[in-house]
């Protein structure tokens, strides 16, 4: 069966889907790397955005919860500037996983450099 793609919107949607897929894995890496230093949600979002990795709270907070339930992050509620904030940082296991993921990412990167 021949599939005819409507130019414009369909191409845009396809690109967006692929871009999201590409970003999904990278976001985890970025979040883990950024949390080598303890931060709370809002400052983490700002840090990532400042580095060009913008992430909305509907993506970030569920991701933080998932990473915490997987044992890669540790969090605690603490008062700062008279307000309770939830601070996150990498767990011992998270540090090991991050190191391995970074090695893997660098390996993929150098392979891709060779291809493209």
């Amino acid at each position: 069966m021949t599939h005819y793609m409507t130019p414009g919107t369909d191409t845009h949607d396809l690109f967006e889907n692929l871009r999201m897929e590409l970003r999904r894995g990278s976001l985890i890496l970025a979040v883990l790397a950024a949390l080598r230093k303890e931060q709370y949600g809002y400052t983490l979002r700002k840090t990532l955005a400042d580095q060009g990795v913008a992430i909305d709270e509907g993506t970030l907070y569920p991701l933080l919860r998932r990473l915490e339930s997987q044992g890669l992050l540790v969090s605690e509620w603490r008062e700062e500037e008279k307000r309770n904030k939830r601070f996150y940082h990498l767990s011992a296991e998270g540090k090991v996983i991050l190191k391995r993921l970074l090695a893997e990412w660098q390996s993929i990167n150098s392979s891709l450099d060779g291809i493209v």
Partner: protein
Amino acid sequence: MEPLNRYLNAVGKGLPEAQREDIIRELSEDIRSEMEDKEAELRRPLTEAEQQAILKRRGNPVLLAARFRQDHRSVAFGPQLIGPVLFPFYIKVLSFNLGLTFIIIATIFIALLMGGQNVTFHAVLSSILLQLFIQLSAVTLVFSMIQRHLNRYPDSWNLRGTGVHLDLKIDSSIQSALRGSGQVPRFESVSIIIASAIALVWLAQVQRHPFLIFGPAAYFLKLAPVWARIYGPIVLLTLLGMVQAAINLFRPRWTRFRTLTQAVLQAAGLVVLYFLLKAGNLVILADGVAGSHVAGYSRAINLVNQGIFYGLLVAGLISLVQVVLKIAHLIRGQRNMPPLPGVDVKC
């Protein structure tokens, strides 16, 4: 209530209960931090409009809450009808409707039993299955339409009034109509046309097949003659409602026309209701029922009549309040608006 609390309340409704408080605390902290940053930048407190703009950028609270849920169940018959975002609400509404319906069915059958009637398992089961089918179809249809709307217009929500609203509520379009600046959503017009068409078919069939309204109780129940007298006016009012919806489908800016027509039709409906309430007996003993059970059936019929009477009375009072509110809003709108408001004759 300030916009942030309204927004968080709306998000909270869609969150898993066990994590709700924790997630809301964290989201609240995130949004407050952003607002504080903005205030520091502007060197003044944010206005309500600016707070709302920040919240609007955060996205639809229903969609935001769905991102935190692990439950990704959906309803699909081939294409997906109800996605994971609306699924928990669909289940809640369906459970509530079915629960209420089963309580009513149980009350009817208990009344029949108390009236000395022989209630069979088959009769109970067929009533339950019929109601299950009707409720399931109706609720699924409504939610699949909402899902379609949500897919097409994910940012169609607002923080007006005391809560967060998806812009597909008939009430919100009435409000916009009363302000004279809005449009009648096509979703609403199409829904009215479809619902009215179904109601007309049902009205026509129920005359010949009382089972559709009474279930197995149609063996000894039938509609009183007063229903035949008001059948014509009910059909006429339903048709007029469809005409209004069809006009608004092509002329969505005719919002005041919609409000005025609905107020008139609702008032006419109240007249019909008056005749029904005046008639007293709304269901009577079916033809051919005789013998020793007649007395028991009569007691059951009295109970059913009382139930319908009070039900209609409450419905009538609610409708009366709605008519008065619509007229009051129309008058208020007339005073506050320039000449020929609402009805865009250029459309």
